């Protein structure tokens, strides 16, 4: 690692900490910004008894100054005490823990589909002549207008009614059965992003194909496949990585839609259900978790780019 990479790393970590701090303040303030009494906001959609009101006041330190309330909340989250859901009458941690696995599996499955088909079709469009390019362009134009919920209902219709190859409800048990159950949800999440990654990849690869260093490599008689791997694709990869962090992190949020459509009990469906029942303690913790994932994955992508292309880490005049 050279100095540029280290500087990027240090700068990124500082930005990361500051952004996380500010985001946690915003999410914490949701209790204060909710119309009405904070006790009612924390109790959620239920009508609290006098004993419960006392319990909520004590647990959230509502008699202390606001900044101390924040420190109690954030300190609790950092030490694994995620608070209590008064709607579900249980610890938030106990609600979240069993649901994380299925959502992570769904997101990873989706990311693999996006990497294979999105990047693959982008490379095809860039390298296999105008016909392939045109075909991929039409396909991606349609794909970019196909949101998760539309792909989901198309898949449910085709597979529940017509073909019946895949289950259309539930998450299954055990790894293989879960992967089988999660195939349709993963496809429904992936379609829009496959189109997006295809476009990004095509643009990046075409940009490299027309560059002098690639012509030079070809003229030197380096085999085509090696030119592509080491000169074209490697140089195109920072542009693809630049959108990867945002995409994978975004999948954790949008997985709520696939989970809802296919009846999967993951983190996203819990978030949706908790929001519908105005269960603020649960929604706050999941929101914070999603923001942490978002910020960390973005930073990882930035660091990966700095490692591949140290030039990008140098200070730019117009950055």
């Amino acid at each position, binding site marked *: 690692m050279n100095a540029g990479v280290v500087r990027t790393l240090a700068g990124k970590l500082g930005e990361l900490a500051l952004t996380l701090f500010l985001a946690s303040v*915003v999410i914490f303030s949701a209790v204060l910004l909710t119309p009405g009494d904070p006790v009612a906001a924390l109790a959620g959609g239920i009508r609290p008894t006098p004993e419960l009101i006392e319990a909520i006041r004590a647990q959230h330190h509502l008699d202390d100054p606001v900044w101390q309330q924040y420190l109690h909340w954030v300190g609790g989250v950092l030490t694994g005490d995620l608070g209590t859901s008064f709607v579900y009458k249980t610890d938030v941690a106990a609600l979240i823990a069993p649901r994380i696995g299925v959502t992570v599996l769904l997101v990873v499955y989706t990311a693999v589909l996006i990497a294979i088909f999105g990047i693959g079709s982008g490379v095809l469009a860039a390298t296999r002549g105008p016909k392939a390019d045109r075909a991929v362009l039409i396909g991606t*134009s349609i794909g*970019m207008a196909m949101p998760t919920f539309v792909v989901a209902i198309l898949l449910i219709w085709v597979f529940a009614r017509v073909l019946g190859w895949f289950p259309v409800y539930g998450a299954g048990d055990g790894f293989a059965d879960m992967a089988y159950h999660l195939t349709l949800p993963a496809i429904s999440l992936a379609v829009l992003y496959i189109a997006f990654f295809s476009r990004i990849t095509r643009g990046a690869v075409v940009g490299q194909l027309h560059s002098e260093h690639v012509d030079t490599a070809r003229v030197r008689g380096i085999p085509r496949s090696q030119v592509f791997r080491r000169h074209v694709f490697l140089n195109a990869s920072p542009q693809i990585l630049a959108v990867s962090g945002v995409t994978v992190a975004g999948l954790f949020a949008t997985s709520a*839609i696939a989970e809802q459509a296919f009846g999967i009990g993951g983190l996203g469906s819990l978030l*949706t259900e908790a929001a519908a029942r105005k269960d603020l303690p649960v929604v706050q913790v999941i929101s914070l978790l999603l*923001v942490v994932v978002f910020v960390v994955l973005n930073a990882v992508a930035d660091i990966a780019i700095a490692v591949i292309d140290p030039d990008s880490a140098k200070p730019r005049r*117009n950055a």
Partner: protein
Amino acid sequence: MSVAQLAGGRVAAVVRRAATRDPLVIAAVVVVVGVAVMAVFGSALAPYDPNAIYVGPVSAAPSLAHPFGTDDLGRDILSRVLAGTAPSVLGPVIVVLVSSLAGAALGITAAWFGGAVDGIASRLIELIFAIPGLVLAVLAVAMFGKGLLAPTLALAIAYIPIVARLIRAGARQELGRPYMAALRIQGVGSAAICFRHLVPALLPALFAQTTIGFGYAMLDLAAISFLGLGAQPPASDWGVMIAGGQPALIAGAPEQSMFPALFVVLTVLAVNVLGARVTTWAEGGER
């Protein structure tokens, strides 16, 4: 000629050229105008009361009496799609209007003053960017209850950084050009430079981003309604209709979900096609 007139002349030329070269753009314009007409006159054009149940048989296939068929409560799907256009389109319009205005103001302020102001503005942009739009919308629902207003405003805030980043970069570039220095030397006031020269120069890029943003906002808001957190049944919002049609879909009657889904996809597709063309025009180049 002012910059605005020049831009106006270019719009007409681009429209003419696009129409002769690219039938896709014509199709997109037809869809967008059609959806706009549906949004304004949809309820009046609906052949049946969109919420009246058992106006026909339950989950019927398309027929002359019911061109899009009927849903699981015997409501006319065509009438519901027509009446649902306005709420499905209004939300995204509010999102792009608010986020474009606020984002442009933030981006221009950051670029204009630079230094500490730019630092604070950029930090603010990063902060909002770190909270995904869907998450902010769901948080808003947990705070204010189900309905479209809170998620719409939350998405408007979530879309601000995209516009602000674009405008900040564009404004910095524009402010560095020689004609800006020339205007200053001639003694032109700051307000005049900002609103008569800088803002018009940034409008094409802003317009392109607004067009693209509309498509994303429509998908996000339909997703919120699909999740059951936005518009509530029996409202005929497209997202609500798609979700409500899922049992009928599994039972073998896809019309209830498919027709509103088709309209969401067509609208977003048309807006995306226009957005791509507007972006090409804003960048001042040919494809």
